[in-house]
Structure formats: C-alpha cells, structure tokens
C-alpha cells in the first residue's frame, strides 16, 4: 500500500502523521501505548522496523534514529523481581533486566548506560545472558568541564560505530542533523504543553502530560510530534483548585502510580522526573560538530540524581517549585534507590528553608503497596489543606 504525505489537523481526534517511509498501518493511541508499550514492540516487529532498546535518558536517541533504528526505552513495569539479582538491588533494575530477557526477540540490540550501580551491573549480567549485541555507554558522573565533554564525545563516536554495524551502513551527518531536528521538535512540543501549568489556574493534568513524555520514548518521533500538536490545538486545560504538588523522583513508567497520587486529591503541577520534565527541558544546539553538540547537551542538561553536581539539581527543583507554584513536594523513591535517597536529605533541607513541606514515600513493588502509598499521600495532602 502506498501512503502519501498527508498532514491532517482536526480539533476532534488524535491523528497520525503518515509519510512515504512509514510502514505503520494502524492508528496509535497514546494512552494505549502507555498502558501497554509491549504492543508497540510487536507492531514494530510486524512492520519490519528495527528497534534498539535503551535504558537511560543519557543515551542520545538522536544517534539511534540517525542509524534508521527506532529507539525504545525499556520500562520496568510488567515484570516480577529477578532471580538473578539479590533482594536489595532496586526493583527497578531487576524489572528492566527481566524485561530485556523476556523481550529480547523484539530488539536488534541494546544500549545500556552507566546510570548508577545496579544499572551498571545490569550490563554485566545482560552481557552474559543475551545474544543480541549490547553496548555500554560510559556516561561520566562528573558532567562538568571540557575533559568530561571530550571523553563523552569519544564514547558517542564509539556508539555511532556500534549502531552503524547494526544498521549495516554508514550514518551520515545529514541523517544525524535530521534526527536532532525531530528530537528537538519533540522536546519543544512537550515543553509547550508543560508550560501551561504555570498560571496556577489552568493546567493539563499530570497524567496526560506524563503520557505524552512516555509515548515520546516509545513511538516514532514524527508520529508523536503530530499527536502532541493536535493535543495542543485541542487545548485540554482545565481549571483546578486542587492542592498543587511537585514530584521529585527518578523514572516512573507505571502511570497507575501517577493516577493514584492525583486521585488522592492533588494536582501534579511540576516534576523533576527522568520520565518527566528532565527528558525534554533542554534542546541540542545545531552546530557543525553534531556529535560534540550531543555530548554537550546530554551532559549539561538538568542532572538526574545519578549525574552532575548536587547543587545543580537542587537549583532545578527550587526553580520548578517556585515557577509552578507547588504547595508541597512528594519525593517518590524506590526503596533501594541510592541516588534519590542520598539526595532526599538535601532536598528536604533546601525546601524546609523555603517553608515548603516535603514527604518521602518509598516503595518496592507498587502493585502490592498501593494501600500504603495512598495512606501517606492522603495524609500529606490533608496536612497541606489545613
């Protein structure tokens, strides 16, 4: 079947951007993708699209796209704890591990990054357990200074070679620039939706915003960009007087958690999640040395608890809380997540000075702990409402 280049905008339905290269033959609904991203993997396989799984937002999707491969961020939900790791390794890493093992057939290769200790060791285990090619991207913890950027640039060149092998052809500069453009567009659109929260009265609710971010990690960029544009046109802001909260955390893929938090009687006005604002806040500069530009953007972006100076991250949280007028901050920490748990003490100190109440909620297996989590969130919201 031939598809012609059509761009349709309507105010009534979500839409798909179809072009002559697209092999997708069905409409994709964002909420369906977020509920069950594995289905997306099946669609890719059926359409003959080659997918590269990656573990961390420090892996430049642009490089993967420039090699004509589809990037797919490996989620943690849908998996039980692993028998291959000790009980005190965070459930997040164990679940990502299990997902990789379970879903290997859908991928052409994997790119794992040196995010934190368990994700680092994930590479060790995956290397021994899967047949598909695996790449380990050595992201410096210390992101500051030319030395780090130069080193990371060399790592990205090494990654480019790896992807070239999977593609079976050379990655052109043109392809790279085009990939950077489409990813920049994605990030700008997500930011535009996000910025609707800052007037304190109208907003797009947390669940919807997070869905757009996650879908951007699982769907083809052109397609998700078109859908976000349509949703911006739709303008589904609503007025709300619910308590405004900021969520401090790492990566949350299971949106039932977000839903549960908002159902407890609040509105998530802002966040610093890896699967939230930190994914899209900064763009890549267009430059004559695109690999260097990537290295620079990915290291200098808003840091996660696992990379970069603590002060930089605290400043970002401070900025978000003020800009989006949060009344309180919820830190969602996986029970064994070292980076978040070390940071939590300093986040609390900083916010206490600003008179902003915080609450730390730790969990291991969200499905089994909904009661516990709900109790705490409700009590926290009650304490803010007075």
């Amino acid at each position, binding site marked *: 079947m031939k598809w012609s280049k059509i761009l349709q905008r309507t105010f009534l339905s979500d839409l798909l951007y179809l072009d002559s290269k697209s092999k997708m033959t069905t409409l994709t609904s964002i909420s369906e993708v977020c509920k069950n991203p594995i289905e997306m993997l099946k669609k890719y396989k059926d359409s003959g699209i080659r997918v590269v799984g990656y573990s961390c937002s420090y892996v430049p999707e642009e490089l993967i796209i420039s090699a004509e491969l589809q990037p797919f961020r490996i989620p943690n939900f849908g998996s039980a704890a692993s028998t291959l790791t000790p009980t005190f390794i965070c459930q997040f890493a164990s679940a990502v591990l299990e997902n990789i093992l379970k879903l290997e057939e859908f991928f052409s290769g994997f790119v794992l990054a040196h995010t934190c200790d368990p994700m680092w060791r994930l590479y060790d285990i995956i290397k021994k357990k899967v047949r598909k090619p695996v790449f380990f991207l050595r992201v410096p913890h210390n992101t500051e200074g030319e030395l780090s950027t130069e080193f990371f640039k060399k790592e990205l060149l090494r990654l480019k070679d790896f992807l070239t092998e999977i593609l079976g052809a050379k990655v052109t500069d043109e392809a790279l620039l085009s990939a950077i453009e489409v990813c920049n567009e994605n990030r700008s659109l997500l930011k535009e939706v996000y910025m609707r929260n800052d007037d304190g009265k109208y907003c797009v609710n947390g669940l919807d915003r997070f869905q757009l971010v996650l879908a951007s990690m699982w769907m083809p960029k052109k397609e998700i960009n078109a859908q976000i544009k349509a949703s911006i046109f739709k303008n589904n802001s609503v007025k709300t007087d619910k308590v405004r909260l900021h969520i401090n955390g790492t990566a949350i893929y299971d949106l039932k958690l977000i839903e549960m938090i908002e159902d407890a009687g609040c509105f998530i006005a802002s966040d610093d999640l890896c699967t939230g604002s930190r994914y899209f806040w900064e763009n890549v500069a267009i430059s004559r040395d695109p690999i260097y530009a990537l290295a620079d953007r990915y290291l200098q972006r808003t840091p996660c608890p696992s990379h970069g100076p603590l002060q930089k991250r605290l400043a970002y949280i401070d900025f978000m809380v003020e800009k989006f007028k949060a009344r309180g901050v919820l830190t969602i920490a996986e029970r064994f997540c070292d980076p978040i748990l070390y940071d939590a003490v300093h986040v609390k100190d900083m916010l206490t000075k600003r008179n902003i*109440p915080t*609450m730390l909620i730790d969990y291991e297996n969200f499905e089994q702990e909904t*009661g*516990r989590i709900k*109790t*705490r969130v*409700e*009590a926290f919201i*009650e*304490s803010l409402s*007075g």
Partner: protein
Amino acid sequence: MYAGVDAGASATKVVIVDEGENIISHAIVPSGINFKASSEEALKKALERLNLTKRDILYIVSTGYGRKLIDASAVFSEITCISRGVHKLFPSVKTIIDVGGQDSKAIRIGENGRVLDFVMNDKCAAGTGRFLEVMATILGKPIEELGALHFKSLNPVKISSTCTVFAESEVISYMSKGCKIEDVIAGLHNAIAERIFSMSSRIGFEREVAFTGGVAKNPGFVEALSKRIGLNPILPKEPQIICAFGAALLAKKRFTEKV
C-alpha cells in the same frame, strides 16, 4: 453528636463526642474480616451506652485501615485524626508515637494540631503490637500480663534479631536455656522499643512527646520506650481510642463548616 470510627486492622474503635467536644461514649470491638459489620457493631455498642440510635449522629468520620469500606460522611487518614485527638487533650504535645496492632507511626505536629511530618512502619511486624502478640503466644502468657512481668526483670536478655520470625527462635532458645520469663519479656519490650526509636528518630523527639495506640496500654513497653528515648511521655488514659476521638472532632468540624 458526632462519631469517629477507627477501623484498624486488629480492632475497630468508635468514639462519640458532644457539642462541647467531650467524649461521651466509646466502644472497641475486634475487626475480624468484615469492617462494615464490626464498625456497625462498635457504633451500636457506643450508642447503646447513651440510649441513642444512629439517627442521633449528625456526622461520621471514618479512618484507619478499613476506612473506605464503612458507611461514613467523610474519610480522613489516621495521621490527621491522631494529631487532632492528641492536640485536643494535650495542647503542649509536639511529637506523637503511635503503636498499633499492625503498624506504628511517629508524627510531628505544629500549632493547632497540624501535621508537619510523619513516618510509618506498616510493612514489618517487628515494631508493632503483632510482635508482642506472637511472643506472648510463645511464652504462654496473655498479652495483658506482659506489662506487670516486665517490672520483675532484673536481667533483661538481648534480642538481636530485627525480624519477628528470627526473634521467635531467639525467644525459644532463651526459654529452653532456662532464662526467667520476665527477663525475656523485658528483652522483647526493649527490642520493640529499639525498632520504634529507630523509626522515630527521623522525626525527632521535640517535647512534649505522647504515646498512643493499643500497645501504649502496656506499661512495660512504655517504660522501655521512655528509657530508650530518655524522657517521660504523656500517656492518655485510653491511648487506643485517641484516633477515633480525633476522627469525631473532625466530624464536628466538617459538619459545622457545612452548615
């Protein structure tokens, strides 16, 4: 009249207050598996003491583990209810340590009983009433006697396990070696106090500190925890119903606001 219903995992407590916010009746029944039924039973008992019926209650607030499963006009978390209840009776209290049948919490409160911060342990039995229940069964003593026996102890044993299951084997081991039962009991109280101290230190112990919850009825435990923290706590006469009391106060507040 206003009612607060605390549907706890072990026991359901009901408190009825009047317009003057005085406790005029209360009742405690075991929760069993049907919260709706046990809450109805508890409410009925509390009303019978006053010769009243449910229609005399203007507003009911439910709280506790089973709070969403029972008939109530509004729902609040235990944290909020305990804080209100304690603050009403003892306005000088800044820290509350609540040890119930299946969980324990530490709450820091500010002016007018507002919750400032809290920590909870609801995952692990060690550090809750369950721990003592299990041990009391092994020792063959009713749980009400543990308090008195504690004070007979001259040489408390050291329970090193933080886990209830492992602590059980330690207790059995001590008893088979011929240790005195009061020493084992004192050791157990110290162990549970240690757990609770550890959890609560993140909140701090700004005075005054109050102990609430079913386990606060055990003088041996109270002694062990007071010693560990290093202060004398405020002890309500009926520590187990403070949460329901707070719920009843919130019931009055809500009703008055609506009118």
